[in-house]
């Protein structure tokens, strides 16, 4: 068994390009997608024909009190020119009792801006109304009483959630590629005859299988390990402190992925067929399983159901729970068990088909 296991590592050492490129692609994709998913700031040009300069500044200061928005003071003429030249999509006109938008073209962000402006307006108008009820005294808003509702889910920022999602999703997606493409070697070995050489040697067939599968399993775990260390140490992604949960989830996922490889080898008739089916299966599983975006965003019930037959879904969700919400192994028992069950099922069918098609 160990001679087969070591041989596969030696072969990998001689031709490591495939694995190295998938590790590099994992990091690149996380950098790219993670980078574009950072918290965005919406910029809004603001002007007023009624308010004085200081009043307008005061309004803009209030509007800028919330992160995610940047209101800039400008004047009508400049703004109208910018709208005509399509340099901006919309602008905000502030009045004493109301506000308007000058819209040059539809914008995805205008609803979010409107919600925010409406909230600030209501607060300010309410304070003005209260002040009017007490004409003798000057009412000044000194401090806010803020009531914060905190739950486990709310304690995680959206950027942490996005980061954990993209890190786990992309890593599992590319490790699926590495394992499946790597396992193509088994199909090639069957075609070229080295597999038969091993079968007629005094080695036990079970040792040949275990040696091969153990190699791809350890390769998958190693790739995920390298990626996670890079994300943790160099890119400052938050992995929490439930390392055991992460390790167990990774191992269960890699086991399911190796078993999936066996199933595919059992189904196809040639390495060429396998080569063409791997990108389809990997990408379909990754997309359905929520490697690229959270499954919650998908509204179609059928697609949500399909997500639950992919190992990527359980792997990603379990990793996110471990990283973000400190879920222990006990908390992740369900997704881990499903991954192991999938692995046993795929492996059983795959081995059976492989032996039959011999």
């Amino acid at each position, binding site marked *: 068994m160990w*001679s087969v296991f070591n*041989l596969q590592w*030696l*072969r990998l050492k*001689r*031709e490591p390009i495939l694995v190295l490129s998938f590790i590099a692609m994992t990091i690149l994709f996380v950098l790219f997608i993670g980078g574009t998913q950072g918290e965005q700031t919406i910029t809004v040009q603001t002007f007023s024909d009624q308010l004085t300069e200081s009043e307008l500044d005061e309004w803009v200061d209030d509007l800028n009190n919330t992160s995610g928005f940047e209101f800039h003071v400008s004047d009508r003429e400049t703004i109208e020119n910018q709208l005509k030249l399509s340099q901006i999509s919309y602008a905000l006109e502030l009045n004493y009792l109301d506000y308007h938008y000058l819209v040059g073209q539809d914008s995805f962000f205008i609803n979010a801006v409107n919600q925010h402006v409406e909230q600030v307006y209501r607060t300010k108008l309410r304070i003005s109304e209260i002040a009017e009820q007490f004409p003798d005294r000057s009412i000044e808003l000194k401090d806010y009483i803020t009531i914060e509702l905190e739950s486990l889910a709310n304690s995680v920022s959206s950027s942490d959630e996005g980061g954990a999602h993209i890190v786990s999703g992309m890593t599992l997606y590319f490790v699926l590629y590495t394992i499946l493409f790597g396992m193509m070697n088994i199909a090639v070995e069957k*075609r*070229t*005859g*080295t597999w*038969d*050489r*091993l*079968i*007629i*040697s*005094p*080695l036990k067939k079970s040792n040949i299988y275990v040696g091969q599968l153990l190699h791809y399993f350890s390769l998958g775990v190693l790739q995920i390990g390298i990626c996670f260390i890079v994300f943790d140490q160099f890119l400052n992604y938050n992995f929490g402190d439930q390392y055991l949960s992460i390790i167990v989830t990774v191992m269960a996922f890699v086991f399911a992925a190796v078993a999936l490889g066996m199933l595919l080898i059992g189904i196809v008739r040639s390495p060429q067929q396998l080569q063409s089916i791997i990108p389809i299966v990997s990408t379909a599983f990754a997309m359905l399983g929520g490697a690229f975006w959270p499954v919650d965003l998908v509204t179609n019930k059928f697609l949500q159901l399909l997500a639950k037959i992919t190992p990527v879904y359980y792997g990603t969700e379990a990793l996110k729970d471990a990283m973000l919400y400190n879920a222990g192994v006990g908390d992740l028992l369900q997704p881990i068990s499903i991954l192991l069950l999938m692995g046993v099922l795929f492996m059983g069918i795959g081995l059976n088909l492989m032996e039959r098609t*011999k």
Partner: protein
Amino acid sequence: MLQVNDLHKKFKTTTAVNGVNLYLDQGESVGLLGPNGAGKSTTISMISTLLQPTSGDIRFKGGDVFKKPDVIRPVLGVVPQEIALYEELTAYENMHFFGKTYGLSGEKLKNKIDEVLELVGLTDRKKERVKNYSGGMKRRINIAVSLMHEPELLIMDEPTVGIDPQSRSHILEMVRELNRKKGMSILYTSHYMEEVERLCDRVYIMDHGQIIASGTKEELKSILSSEDTILIEVHQKSEQFIDQLNEHSLVQQIAEVDTGYKVIVSKGADVFADIFEIANASQVKVKGVHVQTPTLEDVFLHLTGRKLRD
């Protein structure tokens, strides 16, 4: 040593092997001759325990190889038709790995690798990756790997396909040496007649999954003792010429060869004049007509009506 009894193998609707019987004694070199698709490789796969027969049995030194594959596996060497090597590894690494699978290790393994590399003439190139080798060199390493454990029985499935004459000659010489000097029993399949004639003591001729003739080379050639083989060399070939020859009462078989036609006729039949007459009528220019000593190729042609490489 090896006994194959009434072996059958069916794949869904095709019968690849249909009642094959053969035997091989210790130290013997036996050829299994037949065209592509005759069932040679399937027979070999079954002898190698890679494929279960539909019926029949194979015994090695009295033991049933399917019930107990271990009776044959440790002492069996198989040289497959394909280059069954890890091409990204060097020749040395391939031999090292396969040697280990047979339980060799340490100095014994190293010495064995050196000895086999010497035998196949690749000692100087042992550190090169197999993928950089020429076709002939790959074939030699393909054989070398099968010799690592000094098998008692070596099965070679078309080991010289697609290689240059020099490598081919080297391989044939090596096989002869293994058989003569080391007493290795060899089952050699090929559709190159001259290889089998050169290497083998006995020959089985196989076609359509059956053994159609067997015996020593002389015994097989004696099948043609009542026939002559005539080689007709022509300037250009003609369908009409073949058709008219076929109609001749003394002509038994005709096959196209590179330079013209090979015709098997009844021994002593005076057909020369008729050949020239038919050639004239078909407007075929004859370069020469020769009576030849029968070869195994002629025996195959006589038995099947086809050439081995058809």
